[in-house]
């Protein structure tokens, strides 16, 4: 009885494992920074219709994605929120160097809750006592947080503000903390602030004060279908895709 049970469950497990391993041909695993969630989801259907390939997304902080790719996750394409994470993977020989492109640029904004009464137009005003907590993606490694820390350092306020920082897992979690009112302010990408009705942009970080934000993309080495992956990268630079990226507020690298 028991041994029969074991056999049956072993067969079931085997069936599940093999079906998962033989992923459908023409399915691309896209590992992309959390900030790209909405834009890529909008781009996907048109691409899938045009190419016949299916896209599977994995959205997270770029540092998390980098870790997953290092540990051998089955990624075909990696879109990072900063060049540093891509540099790391390139150095480790985990991406196809020739495929790498700097695709998008972005801007930082300071956000507050939609019904917040804070007056906040300049970085100095971030130090007001009413702002007890500032949500950022974790500045120890998540790109949006690294950028935010660079910005606060540039304006000379990092030391004054670092005790108020609530580090989050990725940039969207920082946005969510401000939306829920659990953080008084947050520093996120302009493109994140744009998708939320529950936050207002207090001010945009001027280009000369903020770090240069660049999102590179590359095909991951070991992709089962690097031709399709390259084709998708090309599609991301097409007119149709660029229109969507621009709509969400991304800048386009020429």
């Amino acid at each position, binding site marked *: 009885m028991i041994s029969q049970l074991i056999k049956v469950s072993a067969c079931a497990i085997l069936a599940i494992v093999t079906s998962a391993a033989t992923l459908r041909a023409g399915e691309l695993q896209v590992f992309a920074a959390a900030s790209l969630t909405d834009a890529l989801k909008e781009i996907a259907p048109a691409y899938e219709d045009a190419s016949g390939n299916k896209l599977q997304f994995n959205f997270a*902080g770029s540092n998390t994605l980098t870790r997953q790719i290092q540990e051998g996750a089955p990624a075909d394409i990696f879109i990072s929120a900063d060049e540093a994470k891509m540099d790391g993977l390139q150095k480790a020989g985990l991406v196809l160097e020739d495929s790498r492109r700097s695709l998008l640029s972005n801007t930082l904004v300071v956000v507050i809750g939609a019904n917040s009464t804070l007056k906040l137009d300049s970085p100095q005003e971030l130090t007001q006592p009413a702002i007890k*907590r500032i949500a950022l993606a*974790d500045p120890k490694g998540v790109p949006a947080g690294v950028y935010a820390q660079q910005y606060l350092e540039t304006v000379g306020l990092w030391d004054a503000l670092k005790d108020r920082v*609530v580090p989050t897992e990725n940039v969207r979690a920082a946005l969510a*903390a401000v939306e*829920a009112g659990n953080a008084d302010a947050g520093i996120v990408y302009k493109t994140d602030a744009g998708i939320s009705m529950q936050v207002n942009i207090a001010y945009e970080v001027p280009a000369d004060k903020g770090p240069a934000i660049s999102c590179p993309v590359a095909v991951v080495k070991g992709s089962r279908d690097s031709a399709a992956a390259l084709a998708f990268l090309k599609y991301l630079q097409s007119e149709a895709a660029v229109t969507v990226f621009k709509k969400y507020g991304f800048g386009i690298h020429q």
Partner: protein
Amino acid sequence: MGASEWQIVGFTFGMALLATALIFPFGVVLAWFLARKTWPGKSIVETLVALPLVMPPVATGLILLKVLGRRGPVGEFLYKHLDWDIVFTWRAVVAAMAVMSFPLLVRGSRIAFEAVSPRLEQVATTLGASPLRVFLTITFPLAIRGIVAGSLLAFARALGEFGATILVAGNIPGKTTTLSVSIYSDIQLGHDSDAFRLLAVSVILAFAAVWISEWLFKRRTT
């Protein structure tokens, strides 16, 4: 281990201790009511108490986040009237630990109470002891080992709490980062050797708690 790692270990230990102390009186009294009394709605309370044990911790965390957040029913009240922030503070760490380990305390204590012979209590009552006196001088002392064992299990559970904690308390270095959260974020950031050091600490702490708890259970039954 560096200063910041000792801080994490000390903080987690302290918060788990505080959480266990906070739930102790409620857990013990509830366990006694579950073991000794029948009342309407008992089975519902029993089920509710067990829920955090079987629900995904992160789901429990989401409920806590909605309840304790500045716009949640409890969180809003505390923020307005006491100027208490819960979410993203050490209070949220304690709240998450307390809720997640409560079932273990209640279960352990309940088994301990059920093992105390009601005849001893009846004898005390016939000799004129009040119900409170019976509890304090007969039931509680006889059940104490099981209660302590249950508390230790609850404490160990609190030490390792992750899913609910990361949602309600976040990961603020020096303020809300616990052992488990730190291991997770160290791995995410590629600081594997830091994670392994904390891993060793948590294995030692958990081993000690479970070992002492087992030892107490055994002594009680022999």
